[in-house]
């Protein structure tokens, strides 16, 4: 048996064309029963009353939404072949593709784990951290409901360390690449002897068997029955919440008896766990900045004419003058692209998102225009925030809570301006404001 192949395939479901191993090695392990082959797509015919309908399932991402399947005349299998467009960015899976699964004993890590963290938890963090640890030890699902800036990551450390020491394979999943990129160096410092892989779209190849995997939820499509413990960070973030298959991906990547734990500031109603802890205070103990509402009547029309509404322009000018870094959240990509100003702007498809956020942090640029893509996961010292068109449906209460959570995160600057510019106050705006005031009172 090839040990490297075992380490690579343990817990994975992998497209044959994409394995970094020679064909003969793979073939030998198929013959010896170490590797199980699955077709990329399973198609079944369901007899209806009047016609027969075909139902496809993608065996990698488990997508069953038929609008994501496309059939064509395939020159490889010389048949009508169907492929899944839902997970195509990870390499196309079609009817004639083969998926590899490791069918024997999984690889095990051999590292002696070390816990190298000497930070201090606040009493509130400590309590939540202990509650989580005991849930993890009893293998019961746990929800950490913590305000933005409560210091969620560090309170996972003890539970992760205990799991690693018990010989378990651990996964920390977050919906966005930005979050994984921020977590990776922190985890490497805290667990210096552990093999950690960070997986996201465009990540470099990483070798060996990772006892701890940090991955975007998308990357979990490529795992099956891999993890003994899973922590899902920012569990409600788009697109995780919006996409049912992503939730299935988390369940599929975990062992059937593994508990899945969630960490979020804005849990959705559908999130059900056995236990939970609530953290209503930021780690620095200061109140959360409460958003204020300010009317910006007819802003759409004015912006379309190429004019920044005076109130908003005054707000921007003041921040520039005071040298306070700022973020302006806009409801649509169109509005972002056509905003009449030289301010740099970022959206989901923007290639230099990371670099621009860095430049804002280093005060090389005064501010940034953004879509909801920057609503979570980023920390910029002393940043002030405006939401333009806060009444628009894309700004749900949880999005608005996350956006407000960007402000006042550091001890040096625990306060800051968060303003919702609007054309009429929405229920979601009220809900967000109420929730934040409620936490401050708790």
């Amino acid at each position, binding site marked *: 048996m090839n040990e490297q192949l075992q380490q690579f395939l343990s817990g994975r479901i992998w497209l044959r064309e994409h394995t970094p191993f020679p064909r003969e090695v793979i073939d030998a392990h198929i013959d010896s029963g170490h590797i199980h082959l699955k077709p990329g797509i399973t198609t079944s015919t369901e007899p209806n009353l009047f016609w027969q309908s075909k139902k496809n399932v993608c065996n990698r991402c488990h997508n069953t939404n038929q*609008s994501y399947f*496309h059939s*064509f*005349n*395939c*020159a*490889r299998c010389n048949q009508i*072949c169907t*492929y899944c*467009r839902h997970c*195509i*960015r990870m*390499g*196309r899976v*079609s009817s004639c593709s083969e998926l590899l699964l490791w069918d024997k004993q999984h690889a095990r890590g051999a590292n002696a784990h070390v816990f190298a963290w000497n930070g201090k938890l606040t009493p509130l963090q400590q309590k939540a951290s202990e509650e989580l640890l005991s849930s993890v030890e009893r293998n019961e699902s746990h929800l950490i409901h913590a305000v933005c800036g409560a210091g969620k990551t560090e309170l996972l450390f003890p539970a992760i360390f205990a799991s690693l020491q018990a010989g378990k394979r651990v996964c920390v999943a977050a919906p966005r690449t930005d979050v994984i990129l921020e977590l990776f160096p922190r985890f490497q410092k805290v667990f210096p002897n552990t093999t950690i892989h960070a997986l996201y779209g465009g990540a470099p190849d990483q070798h060996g068997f990772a006892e701890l995997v940090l991955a975007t939820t998308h990357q979990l499509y490529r795992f099956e029955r891999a993890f003994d413990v899973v922590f899902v960070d920012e569990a409600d973030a788009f697109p995780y919440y919006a996409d049912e298959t992503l939730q299935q991906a988390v369940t599929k990547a975990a062992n059937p008896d593994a508990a899945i734990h969630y960490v979020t500031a804005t849990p959705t109603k559908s999130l059900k766990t056995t236990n939970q802890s609530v953290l209503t205070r930021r780690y620095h103990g200061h109140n959360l900045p409460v958003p204020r509402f300010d009317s910006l009547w007819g802003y759409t029309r004015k912006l379309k004419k190429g004019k920044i509404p005076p109130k908003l322009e005054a707000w921007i000018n003041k921040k520039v003058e005071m040298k306070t870094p700022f973020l302006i959240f806009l409801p649509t*990509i*169109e509005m972002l692209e056509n905003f009449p100003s030289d301010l740099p702007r970022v959206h989901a498809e923007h290639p230099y998102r990371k670099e621009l956020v860095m430049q804002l942090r280093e005060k090389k640029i005064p501010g940034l225009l953004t879509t909801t893509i920057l609503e979570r996961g980023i920390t910029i010292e002393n940043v002030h925030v405006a939401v333009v068109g806060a009444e628009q449906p894309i700004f749900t209460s949880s999005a608005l809570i996350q956006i407000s959570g960007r402000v006042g995160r550091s001890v040096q600057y625990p306060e800051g301006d968060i303003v919702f510019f609007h054309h009429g106050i929405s229920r979601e705006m009220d809900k967000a404001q109420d929730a934040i005031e409620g936490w401050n009172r708790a």
Partner: protein
Amino acid sequence: MKCLICGAPYKSPPTWSKLFLYELDSSTCIRCFGKFEKSQSVIDFADFRGTPFDGAVDSVFSLYSYNEAMKEYLHQYKFLQDVALATVFAGKLQQAFQSKEGIVVPIPMHPDKLVLRTFAQVDELLNAAQTSYQHVLSKITTEAQGKKTKKERLKTTNLFEEIQTIQPTNYILFDDIYTTGATIHHAAKILKDAGAKRVEAITLIKG
């Protein structure tokens, strides 16, 4: 309908040309389609003057320029093998071919390459555009064009051979992208030498 590129739901607005000319429906939303830029460049054949390929091609028309959006499109269509994207330009390609007369000949792929890619990307664009074509040529070398210098590309003897009798009539070559023009010139020369009257070319992109 869901946009094939961004996945957002959209309605394609009814237009006069759709009602009367049976224009094919677009499979993308207006925002995504708007990112493709019409090609403005005039293609001249200066590079081929004085070579054996001089006069092989009578005209070339490219629909779009090779901008960011097109790069992304081609990546997803060819390298991620998202065949569904063949329909994105169906309407525009159909129009382009309707304005010309002649036998449409797609630039062929080498059979080995075809099995690897699983589909012929040039043929699929024509299928989507409901434009009929004939396989008149076949590819006889697998060497990738992109890896060669311009000089080398011109020197290579016979990239293609004819597999059908060529008529003394008009031919329209079709390829996905026109970069140096070597591919189109090689194909056109074969057709001309075998007796074709006129050889025009249409490409989706001007690289």
